């Protein structure tokens, strides 16, 4: 608790390059730039959603924060302490304050252990006496709305949603402050996903937890996250209050993501930016395009986009965006400046979102 005003988690210019080895002597010939200068912070008790498609580097960000893999650049500060490439001693302390929940509810549970035993492991490690174990496990189960019958069950007897509850309970065992949730509902059906999200909301309200919530599903975080960051090829392209990102997505990639969501009502259809399917596919992070790394797929790209790298700047004191459209200096580069550039939509109505 060094500085009360500092957010619980501060990630600054984080970089994770994986070396690509080739040739007989396995010389490093190249790098996979999985995370390439990512910055954000999360206030205590708040949720930041990290959105992006496969390979954009979301999981790598989380794994680097929690020390499962080392950073190759930048810093991570947790509660005022620099934990970048943490020492073993730091990691041990950190594990009781930061926990991670993974996408696949099955592979993260030991199939040969009952749920009771699985949940007892982290408790024992924290020095909970044997006589109290059962009671504490039942408490944990209750927190995730499972009754004590689950004590004796094995993972294969549980549905995906129930398994994910157990994983959340296990993460809660150490009474952490920060949870890194890596696509915790992607493997689940919508009706089960809705229940897990409701549970996470309740837990946050009850214990003041802070969440980094990773997902590829933009619509999921609409009501859930305070802030949303949209990642593409190792970089954050847009970051801001969730409401803003939804109502006025500024970056062409955020717009594309939003417009591609298949919705179930006309009312929601009106919230989507004009439908513009993206060209091609996400390039390899081994071979990041020059200039703006989104230019190979961007419907608005001009020559300037492949030449110069856009800076990450705040637009109208709102979200920050990495795109030349919002940079005065490039006004001339877009001969027909797409109306997406009009950030300050005076009229807050749905209609204003219909046609960009």
């Amino acid at each position, binding site marked *: 608790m060094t500085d009360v005003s500092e957010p619980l988690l501060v990630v600054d210019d984080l970089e994770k390059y994986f070396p690509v080895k080739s040739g007989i002597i396995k010389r490093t010939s190249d790098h996979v730039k999985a995370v390439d200068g990512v910055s954000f912070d999360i206030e205590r008790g708040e949720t930041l959603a990290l959105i992006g498609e496969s390979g954009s580097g979301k999981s790598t960000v989380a794994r680097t924060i929690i020390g499962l893999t080392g950073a190759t650049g930048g810093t991570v500060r947790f509660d005022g302490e620099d934990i970048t490439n943490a020492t073993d001693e730091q990691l041990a302390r950190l594990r009781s304050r930061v926990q991670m929940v993974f996408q696949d509810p099955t592979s993260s549970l030991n199939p040969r252990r009952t749920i009771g035993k699985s949940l007892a492991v982290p408790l024992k490690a924290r020095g909970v006496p044997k006589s109290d174990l059962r009671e504490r496990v039942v408490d944990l189960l209750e927190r995730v709305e499972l009754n004590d019958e689950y004590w004796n069950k094995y993972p294969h007897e549980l549905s995906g949603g129930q398994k994910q509850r157990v994983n959340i309970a296990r993460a809660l065992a150490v009474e952490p402050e920060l949870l890194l949730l890596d696509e915790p509902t992607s493997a689940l059906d919508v009706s089960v996903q*809705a229940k897990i999200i409701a549970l996470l909301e309740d837990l946050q309200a009850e214990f003041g937890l802070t969440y980094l919530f990773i997902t590829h599903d933009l619509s999921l975080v609409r*009501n859930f996250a305070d802030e949303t960051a949209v990642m593409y090829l190792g970089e954050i392209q847009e970051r801001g209050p969730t409401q803003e990102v939804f109502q006025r997505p500024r970056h062409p990639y955020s717009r594309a993501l939003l417009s591609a969501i298949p919705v179930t009502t006309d009312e929601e259809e009106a919230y989507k930016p004009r439908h513009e399917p993206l060209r091609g596919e996400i390039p390899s992070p081994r071979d990041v395009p020059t200039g703006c790394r989104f230019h190979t797929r961007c419907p608005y790209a001009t020559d300037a986009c492949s030449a110069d790298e856009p800076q990450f700047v705040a637009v109208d004191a709102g979200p920050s965006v990495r795109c030349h459209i919002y940079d005065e200096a490039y006004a001339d580069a877009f001969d027909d400046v797409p109306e997406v550039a009009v950030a300050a939509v005076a009229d807050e109505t749905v209609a204003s979102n219909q046609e960009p």
Partner: protein
Amino acid sequence: MRLDEPVAENPLLTVEDLEVGFESFDGLAEVIDGVNLSIGKGEVVTIAGETGCGKSVTMKSILRLLNQPPARVSGEITFDGTELLSLSDREFERVKGQRMSLVFQDPMSSLNPTFTIGEQLTDTAQFGGDSDTGVVEFFRRRFSGERDEARERVLEMLREVQMPDPENIMDSYPSQLSGGMRQRALIAQALLNEPDLLIADEIGTALDVTIHDQILDLLKDLIENHDLSVLMITHNLGVARQVSDRVYVMYGGRIVETAPTEELFENPKHPYTQGLIASIPRLTGDEMATGIDGSIPEYLDPPPGCRFAPRCPYATAECEEARPEMYERGPQTGVECVLYDEAVPASERPTVEETRSHMTRRPGKQTGGD
């Protein structure tokens, strides 16, 4: 039990009273229980529902992809006037090869990793509709000018599915392609024999949203250009709304609701359909339901009446006694729920908003229901 199903006009495929069970040590799992459905010529029809509700088993019974035993399949499946279940395997393969195509859920497992895309698709183009060619005929075709013609056709098809750099892709192995490209290759393969009926199981749902979006756009164009009748299977109701003319909602091995797409989404009737729609996160920022309590039925011992009863906020004793009828509620619209009996006043039928409110904040904590 035979249920009346609002049938498509001029049907290409009809499935009547389909029942599929799986034998196991613990007894017979009665998975598909009296499914009726139809696909009109030129119609795009979706079966939608969550994991394990029986979508893929239905599709596999139509295409004879289940091993019997352990599967037990009964009912009537009629394709353009021909009853399929009574055909010999050989006769069935002929009909299927010439007139139906399937695009699978998992693009990786449906392509052979040891052959190039070009080799596999050219084989389909040459032998696709005719699997029992003799050896001599096989070699004659494979090493004659016909092979070059077939290759040309494949290239053309790859261009049509907007495969990037098709010439190069012909010589690539499946593992060298991205997920989106593999999906395109499979779609191309499915269209090579110019099928009348295309069956697509969770097409593109494993892909990223922007790629999924491209694939759906492509599919819409192809359906139009090739005059296809399509049976789509998806767990994503938004996808069903985007591509189909008519939707069947499946729950616990039964069709619980069917309607033209617009009607289904503007006015969903069955409590399960309503709960499902209410559980989908909404772009408008309206509160999302907290999901449907409980889990799908145990097929070894399914609930005796309505299979949704244990999870339904409106269930009464009547629902637990007997299976509800499929009540007709307008053209091509049916609901299998007692609330839609004529005798029930309309005011007692729930709206999505009511169902949503039942599912929004939990009155008391549930135990273990996912």
